[in-house]
């Protein structure tokens, strides 16, 4: 075990990784399994999902019946620790003239947001890597789908992703044998599929990082780490120790049987078992340190428990603190050599900030009233979804790019709002009749949420606020935001589509104008692009391996480096990129170039 709860590191390190979420966790695992001595610094507290996950707790055991509040937005049992859109003592602001306030979600825990994410794991497609070549907007990636495909395969095999291969346009298939079987759909999902047929809207199994069956660890690990017996043993044993989903409990609370993917249950255990990874939690990194030659020498962090300034040193530094925080650390790392912040000779750090375009609509579906009850919990999240289906019609739509639809509803564990419908369907009724009404309407609502691609624009960025610091004395970020017509029109299209679907299913719903129905920037929590990769050091911050152009031994590995933010939720791509970058870094370290 090397979570340094005593905060005493005992050795010199080759690599420091800042952050233990998707990007940091994957980098830490790959490097430490290959003999690299890694120190991971995590701003949040130590967190043990095996012991701390309230898997079967019911709403009556929680304050306010578990309902979401300002302090716990996704409900009392959501796995987020010490954070949310507000972190006590760590404010952020808006730049004057912003059209919208940006919401910045941060957990403060080992494993970051991977403890409570939705586990939706969609690959970016061919078009997504070359968007500018297709429609002239945004940026092309310096790599294409083919470069990342092998890493998508490996990542999916290792973390365990269910789904199917449907051969649809720009919705890549995985290699044969990679995906786990998709769970059977629920009733509302089947009903949606039935009625979407007439609208020519596809409904197919979604891909999610949940084990629908146990993994054969040794066999898979042999494929994943062909020349590394130690990794085969450690990862193989660990994969076999994960259980298959037992179709109960919400994935957002975390999964103590390790059936779904969290950095803390899948990446960090094997990495720690290698003996090469040390983790210091409650370590808030403030800036990256450089020497006179412009090389990185380590990081300066605040030990949050003692409030003592501290330094850790290594040959290589990797920032995986999440999109905006990585930009913040770079911008705060100013020196004579780097007056505009580290790795920012292009001036692009903090720019091109995007989030998914989000909009949703729900409706009462009469056909789902009074259905015979059955266990509908399933895989703690979606079983099916709609990938973007309008590539052929794109020119006629009034916006570029597309969105996918996340489909939900039915007989979830009752929450405070589960019977909100009765306010309109059954006014005035009380007594035993009200119980009949509750039985009739419970589970008869379906909701549709669009998650769409936003195109980077010059009005969306973050920068250091010249006037304010957080409780650690670290200058904070302020945000500036403006939607373009692409996003607004896309949200309008979402609303109309959802109303059509609900209508076809026999329900009624009134679509709202896109500008009104758009979620807040940051509300979908898929922020990306503050330090994009590219081929030109003047126009981008890193190369395709996350290596900064300006500083050879500084790497970035989270969604900050994504040049585009396709509708497909981005975490799987961050994981695959991290695996690819780790291999590159190992090679460079061997060659002695970093």
């Amino acid at each position: 075990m090397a979570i340094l709860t005593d905060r005493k590191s005992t050795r010199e390190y080759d690599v420091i990784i800042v952050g233990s979420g998707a990007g940091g966790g994957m980098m830490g695992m790959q490097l430490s399994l290959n003999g690299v001595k890694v120190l991971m610094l995590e701003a949040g507290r130590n967190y043990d999902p095996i012991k701390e996950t309230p898997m079967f707790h019911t709403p009556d055991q929680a304050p306010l019946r578990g309902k979401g509040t300002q302090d716990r937005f996704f409900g009392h049992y959501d796995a987020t620790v010490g954070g949310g859109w507000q972190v006590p003592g760590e404010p952020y602001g808006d730049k004057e003239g912003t059209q919208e306030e940006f919401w910045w979600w941060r957990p403060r825990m080992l494993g970051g947001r991977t403890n409570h994410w939705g586990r939706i794991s969609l690959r970016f497609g061919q078009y997504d890597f070359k968007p500018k070549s297709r429609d002239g907007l945004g940026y092309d990636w310096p790599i294409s789908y083919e470069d990342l495909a092998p890493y998508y395969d490996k990542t999916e095999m290792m973390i365990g992703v269910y789904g199917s291969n449907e051969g649809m346009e720009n919705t890549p298939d995985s290699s044969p044998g990679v995906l786990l079987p998709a769970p059977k759909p629920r009733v509302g999902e089947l009903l949606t599929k039935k009625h979407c047929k007439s609208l020519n809207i596809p409904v197919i199994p979604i891909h999610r990082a949940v084990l629908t069956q146990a993994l054969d660890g040794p066999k898979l690990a042999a494929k994943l780490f062909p020349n590394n017996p130690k990794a085969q043993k450690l990862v193989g044993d660990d994969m076999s120790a994960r259980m298959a989903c037992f179709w109960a409990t919400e994935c957002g609370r975390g999964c103590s049987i390790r059936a779904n993917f969290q950095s803390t249950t899948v990446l960090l255990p094997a990495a720690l078992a290698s003996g090469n990874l040390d983790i210091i939690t409650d370590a808030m990194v403030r800036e990256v340190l450089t020497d006179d030659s412009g090389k990185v020498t380590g990081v300066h962090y605040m030990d949050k428990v003692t409030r003592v300034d501290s330094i850790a040193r290594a040959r290589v530094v990797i920032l995986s603190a999440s999109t905006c925080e990585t930009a913040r650390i770079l911008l705060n790392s100013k020196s004579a050599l780097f007056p505009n912040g580290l790795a920012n000779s292009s001036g692009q750090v903090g720019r091109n900030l995007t989030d998914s375009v989000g909009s949703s609509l729900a409706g009462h579906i009469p056909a789902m009233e009074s259905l015979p009850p059955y266990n509908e919990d399933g895989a703690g999240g979606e079983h099916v979804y709609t990938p973007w289906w309008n590539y052929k019609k794109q020119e006629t739509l009034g916006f570029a790019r597309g969105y996918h639809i996340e489909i939900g509803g039915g007989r979830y564990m009752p929450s405070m709002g589960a019977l909100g419908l009765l306010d309109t369907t059954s006014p005035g009724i009380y007594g035993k009749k009200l119980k009949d009404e509750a039985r009739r309407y419970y589970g008869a609502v379906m909701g549709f949420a669009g998650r769409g691609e936003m195109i980077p624009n010059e009005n969306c960025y973050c920068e250091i606020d010249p006037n304010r610091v957080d409780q650690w004395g670290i200058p904070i970020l302020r945000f500036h935001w403006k939607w373009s017509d692409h996003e607004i029109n896309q949200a309008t299209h979402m609303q109309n589509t959802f109303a059509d679907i609900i209508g076809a299913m026999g329900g009624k719903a009134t679509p709202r104008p896109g500008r009104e129905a758009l979620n807040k920037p940051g509300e979908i929590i898929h922020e990306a692009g503050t330090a994009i990769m590219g081929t030109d050091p003047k126009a981008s911050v890193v190369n395709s391996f996350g290596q900064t152009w300006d500083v050879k031994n500084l790497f970035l590995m989270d969604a900050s480096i994504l040049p585009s933010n396709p509708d497909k939720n981005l975490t799987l791509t961050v994981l695959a990129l991290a695996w690819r970058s780790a291999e590159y870094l190992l090679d460079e370290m061997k060659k002695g170039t970093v």
Partner: protein
Amino acid sequence: MNPSPLSRRDIFKLVAAASAAGALAPVGAEPPKPLTRHFKNTLSDPDYAHPSIPWDKPLDATELATLAVLVDLILPADETSPAASAIGVHEFLNEWVGAPYPENRADYETIRGGVAWINTHAWKHHGKAFKEIAPEEQTAILDSICDPAKALPELSHGARFFQKLRMLTLGGYYTHPATWKSLGYIGNTPINGPYPGVPDEIIKLLGLEGLEGL
């Protein structure tokens, strides 16, 4: 501190002195305590093993007794599920209205004021508080305010109270596991093997044949 002038060797010297590489503790500083969990904010970092509600419950005993009667009129016992008060829905309302969030603050006003309103209303007509009048008298009052669209204008305050109370009661009641079977929620129990999916009976009922394979 100014990080740049320290060379790598200096750092490790300092570190040896402080016996903590990575942390530069000042001379004489107490060694940091081992960290397992630290709850600075029970709202944003709760301890699920020891659930606590970090705010006061503001309603007094008579108010709660009135609410107990009201929630049972809204959701009484039947063959398949308990009365609302039997599973503490009125106590839950007390917790709800004490919470420090804007929605709950507004509901506090509605619920506390509403309880007083309905007592005054009962007293004016029957000379007693609401919980003391006969059940038929209680339902007669509820019938006059239960539907906000039909309530007389002079009873609008009561109607607004009842509408809110009814929805909070529904929420508090059906989030309790004792009511789930009756409602039709079957879940939160592990199943072995693949997810069984929708029963044939429902497939036939909704004409979903042939879609299951997707």
